[in-house]
């Protein structure tokens, strides 16, 4: 495999992990976020500082990146997740930007906006793939369990959910924490991939991209989120030779996918025999037919 392709695949794995996290929160729990790049930043800096400054092995450092992001998300989530819909979304812009701001200003620890160079190149294809496979398996399992149903209940109708005995606030915070863990790990892997990180890498554009791939993969479809990640990455790579028109196409693809398939590439189905069967049933499954109340 050429290094170029390998680089893209590693990036796909990393972004895929982050997208799964956002997918859990936005697609399955119905909490719309525009700030998750902030948690990637936390993961990246934790891993970078642990490996470079304290000489800790990269494996615990990556896990620690995820955990610190998770703890922070929990602390942030408890008060803020009481906000609903666009209100949380806008607040999350603020939260993500605030994380970045702290990293930029805390120069003694993070070296500020100038970035953190000299990180070990520990994210090899094998490492990225291993993390991806394990975390994807866990996430696919999780959504097909009692927790998965609870998240979806909170998404679809939080009043009904609480009347089925779910502590919806708790599940929202839990979902946020898990998603932050995923983003944290993705960030830590990113640090080892690029060997250099800068707060500006984790800006609003990055957050937006994470949410965008989840939405047009299909809200409530994990495989959809991964396909969305692949599509976006491939679009930007394939069109690289036409350099400056690339972002124009990127934006247009985003619009066209939403217009052509507002429910996202996968709707809320998972890639599998059932989905493939439904493709041949002349109609695009039950999701389209349902009107009425919906998440968010």
């Amino acid at each position, binding site marked *: 495999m050429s290094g170029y392709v390998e680089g893209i695949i590693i990036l796909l794995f990393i972004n895929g992990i982050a997208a799964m996290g956002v997918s859990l929160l936005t697609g399955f729990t119905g909490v719309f976020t525009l700030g998750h790049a902030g948690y990637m930043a936390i993961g990246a800096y934790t891993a970078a500082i642990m490996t470079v400054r304290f000489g800790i092995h990269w494996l615990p450092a990556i896990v620690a990146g995820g955990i610190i992001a998770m703890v922070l998300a929990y602390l942030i989530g408890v008060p803020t997740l009481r906000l609903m819909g666009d209100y949380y979304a806008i607040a999350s812009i603020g939260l993500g930007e605030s994380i970045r701001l702290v990293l930029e200003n805390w120069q003694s620890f993070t070296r500020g906006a100038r970035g953190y160079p000299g990180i070990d190149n520990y994210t090899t294809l094998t490492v990225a793939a291993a993390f991806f496979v394990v975390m994807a398996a866990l996430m696919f399992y999780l959504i097909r369990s009692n927790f998965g149903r609870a998240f979806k209940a909170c998404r679809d109708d939080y009043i009904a959910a609480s009347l089925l005995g779910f502590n919806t606030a708790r599940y929202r915070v839990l979902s946020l924490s898990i998603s932050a863990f995923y983003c944290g790990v993705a960030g830590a892997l990113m640090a080892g991939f690029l060997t250099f990180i800068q707060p500006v890498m984790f800006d609003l554009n990055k957050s937006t991209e994470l949410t965008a791939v989840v939405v047009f993969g299909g809200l409530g479809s994990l495989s959809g989120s991964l396909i969305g990640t692949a599509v976006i990455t491939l679009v930007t790579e394939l069109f690289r030779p036409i350099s400056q028109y690339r972002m124009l196409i990127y934006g247009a693809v985003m619009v066209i996918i939403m217009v052509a398939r507002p429910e996202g590439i996968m709707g809320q189905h998972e890639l599998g025999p059932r989905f493939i069967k439904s493709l041949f049933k002349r*109609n*695009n499954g039950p999701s389209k037919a349902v009107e009425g109340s919906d998440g968010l």
Partner: protein
Amino acid sequence: MSDILQQQQPLLSVMDLHVSYGAIKAVRGFNLDVYPGEIVCVIGSNGAGKSTLMNAIMGNVKRQGGQVLFEGKPLDGQSFQIVTKGISLAPEGRKVFAPLTVYENLMMGAFPVNDKAKVKKDLEWVYTLFPRLRERMAQYAGTLSGGEQQMLAIGRALMASPRLLLLDEPSLGLAPIIIKDIFRELKRINEEGVTILLVEQNARQALLLSHRGYVMQTGQLVMEGDAKELLHNPDIQAAYLGTGKKTH
């Protein structure tokens, strides 16, 4: 009575209507005529396609086949165009505008009417019909009780001063006494010249009120005829009117 009607041109005719949702065929080749001055009801069990029929007439769901004529002319286009022709619908499930007040909801109903004096008169009439709405004029519709919302939905449809009034399960969630009031009032407005097409689960009441009735089953027409005849048809009685058991 219906013989005389038959000689006139129908106000509304639905011919060979087909509607489906994805793979589900909700209405398959339904026919129906409503003559001026009539009250016509459509009865049928859950999921028979009655609401779909109403929505298809209003241009609120896509018709896959067939035709709808109003006064002999094709009734096409989107719902807002259909409304201006003098048809209004009180939809199933009430669909009141939750963040608007009761008064504002009623004024939305009067949207196609440009005559201010007429709107005022109608408003007064609706308020008399449902005194509860007058009491709750300034309350947000979303916080009304279920029955109050139903009154509002009917009132809102009346505010459009339609020539043809479509009602989708008007009695849903209403107290017995209110149902009686409403049915009495429907009779009265019908006598004033408003033609009514009604979908009801409360088939007995509906047939008692109507001139003619249609029975719908899995999207198809299974029987039509004079309301009184349907009321006494044993099959209908068995299937839609309960077994005739009464509570006292």
